[in-house]
């Protein structure tokens, strides 16, 4: 039920049968490792049938509780409500709503204009402007695919027209769009905070420096390639033009002040900031830029509710799953095992990255975090890893996962905009993807990149 509908390369029935049998056998092998094994074999098996992740999580829990434990199953029904009965989680629908008002409300195109006026005359021209516009939009939106849509659907056609090869534009925007979850606000960070009881405010603060670094890095790759292949540049904008572009985009840029300024000046809690940003984005879209009419409002509300409900449904079922694991003391057993086998911080973080990257092949970030964080987090804590640093490295890892196949939401989105195939896109994003993997390792093993700013501001 996801966006990928690659119909080429179907297996023959014989080959398919071999695959299916092999998978079933390996699941049985996993299941032989006690209760933890059974839980994971069940989960993986259900997920591979293609059913919604939320349903696979829920069914795993039900099956296990029903057949293998004495916990009353009514608990499950209660958890489905109480699992999201937490004010911090409510930042998610609010940020989604704000993002939709921004996307529909003409904020993105004014940001693109501003970015183009600032850096369009350098090597890379519109591509560089794209990175900057993504970074700016990321600072008001909490989602990566939304950033790709908002910036890409306007800028990509413009780039092709301006004489850039399609794959250059697609590569730049798909990867830069992933800044959406690293530069605050970030829905993925809210989900991590919820899954691990960390502070949303501290995570947001910790994302700023890595976000700016990654934006610079992606921009540099674009600049280098543009110079090498001699891609077109824009005429240099005059001071007056820049000022004008800035003035036009100021309403969107002000949202950065409202969200981050609001949180760090103590005006709002993160959830309240999200609600305020939704109201503000609505105001800008309808009354200031007037790119949205009153008639369009219910549709935006409905679409936001649809997306939020999907995420909240995964969250509730993931809460169930983590309840099952706690109740079976699985994370504790794994933590003890790792410590007994002298897993150091370096090895553990390497394993974490590999595991997350593997999961990134088949799932989108919220599900990955919700399923893996409750397992990995206790171990990380025992090893003395900072929870905020751990959150940032997971976020960066998720960014990588969104930009590579088979499952990579940013790629799907870019493919929808450019009508390029996923394989073609994969080649297109490669230069930036390699840079991102390098950056991920840097963030993983240099905690100070994430922790310096929050520490400076007294958050840790």
């Amino acid at each position: 039920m996801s966006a990928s509908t690659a119909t080429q390369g179907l297996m023959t029935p014989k080959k398919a049968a071999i695959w299916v049998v092999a998978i079933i056998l390996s699941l049985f092998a996993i299941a032989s490792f006690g209760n933890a094994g059974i839980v994971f074999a069940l989960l993986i098996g259900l997920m591979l049938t293609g059913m919604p992740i939320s349903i696979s999580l829920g069914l795993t829990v039900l099956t296990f509780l029903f057949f293998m434990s004495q916990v009353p199953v009514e608990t499950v029904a209660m958890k489905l409500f109480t699992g999201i009965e937490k004010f911090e989680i409510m930042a998610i629908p609010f940020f989604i709503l704000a993002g939709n008002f921004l996307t529909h409300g003409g904020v993105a195109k004014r940001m693109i204009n501003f970015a183009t006026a600032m850096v369009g005359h350098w090597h890379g021209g519109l591509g560089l402007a794209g990175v900057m516009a993504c970074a700016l939009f990321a600072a008001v939106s909490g989602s990566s695919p939304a950033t790709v849509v908002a910036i890409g659907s306007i800028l990509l056609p413009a780039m092709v027209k301006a004489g850039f090869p399609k794959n250059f534009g697609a590569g730049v925007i798909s990867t830069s769009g992933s800044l959406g979850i690293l530069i605050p606000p970030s829905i993925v960070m809210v989900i991590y905070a919820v899954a691990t009881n960390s502070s949303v405010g501290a995570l947001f603060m910790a994302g700023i420096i890595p976000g700016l670094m990654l934006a610079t890095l992606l921009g540099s790759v674009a600049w280098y390639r543009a110079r090498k292949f001699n891609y077109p540049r824009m005429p240099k904008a005059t001071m007056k033009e820049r000022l004008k572009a800035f003035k036009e985009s100021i309403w969107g840029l002000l949202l950065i002040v409202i969200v981050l300024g609001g949180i760090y000046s103590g005006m709002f809690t993160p959830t309240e900031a999200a609600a305020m940003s939704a109201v503000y984005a609505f105001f800008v879209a309808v009354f200031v830029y007037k790119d949205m009419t009153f008639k369009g409002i219910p549709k935006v509300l409905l679409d936001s509710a649809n997306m939020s409900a999907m995420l909240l449904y995964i969250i509730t079922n993931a809460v169930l799953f983590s309840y099952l694991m706690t109740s079976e003391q699985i994370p504790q057993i794994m933590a003890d095992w790792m410590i007994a086998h002298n897993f150091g911080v370096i090895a553990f973080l390497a394993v974490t990255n590999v595991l997350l990257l593997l999961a990134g092949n088949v799932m989108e970030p919220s599900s990955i975090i919700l399923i893996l964080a409750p397992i990995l987090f206790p171990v990380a804590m025992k090893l003395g890893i900072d929870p905020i640093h751990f959150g940032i490295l997971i976020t960066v890892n998720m960014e990588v996962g969104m930009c590579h196949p088979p499952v990579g939401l940013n790629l799907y989105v870019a493919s929808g905009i450019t009508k390029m195939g996923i394989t073609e896109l994969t080649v297109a994003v490669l230069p930036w993807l390699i840079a991102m993997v390098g950056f991920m390792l840097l963030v993983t093993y240099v905690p100070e990149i994430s922790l310096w700013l929050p520490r400076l501001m007294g958050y840790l």
Partner: protein
Amino acid sequence: APIIIKFSHVVANDTPKGQAANYFKKLAEERTKGRVKVEVYPNSQLFKDKEEMEALQMGSVQMLAPSLAKFAPLGLKEFEVFDLPFIFDDYSELHKVTQGPVGAKLLKKLETKGLIGLAYWDNGFKVMSANKPLKNVTDMRGLKMRIQSSKVLDSQMRSVGAIPQVLAFSEVYQALQTGVVDGTENPPSNLYTQKMHEVQKYVTMSNHGYLGYAVLVNKKFWMGLPADIRAALESSMKDATVFANSVAKKDNDEAMAGVKKSGKSQIITLTPAERAAWKKAMDKTHKENMGRIGADIVKEVYAATGYKP
């Protein structure tokens, strides 16, 4: 197979409640010679604040130690008497209630909800903190004060013109640091372990309210236990309670010493006259909530402690 008691709570292992839960586990397993296994789940791992009561009623967990403020939503508003400001002047007054007939009578009411109350565990008396000195009651006016969700605490803050704000415990440090709220009330041990004194300039030793827990078990489960095991568990609980209260007291004293030593916030002590003025101002809360809580029970507590505004 041993009888398993899942004991779930929402705080860390090293807090007084966490330590007491682990101490109970040790005693119970020793005294039943392993016929009972107590699994302690700290940090809301198993159930959160909002769901643990229902979980206990359903039997998904066998033992809890929720804060007394959590009993009103269960339909037992009588327990809000513990939230009333200045109702106990010190531990000796408090223990007259929690270890006397009034406390027992209150616990008895839990049976109408399918629960049994085994004991009261202290956390301690609360201090007020803010970024401005809170010396007189009038200093509270217009301040945004974090409270835990409770009608009485809400009304207590309003009685002195403050704006109560319910916030999750995990968000309090940040909210204080950034100024989402101006101040809060806490027993010293919470204040200190959450490092709130680092982001609050003044701490007033108001000791204005009490924070405590009651240890609960599921009635059906408890009554179904063999009598000898129940007796062993009761004796373990008795000793764990003594331990819990002494740890709480010690932790609070050490926490205040820690706050003082850190020099990060200034400690304000109230003269008896000043404290009396606070008490008088907050007496409004008693009047407002008398009907809610039940005049009988409030009067019984007054009689036990000799409360006079």
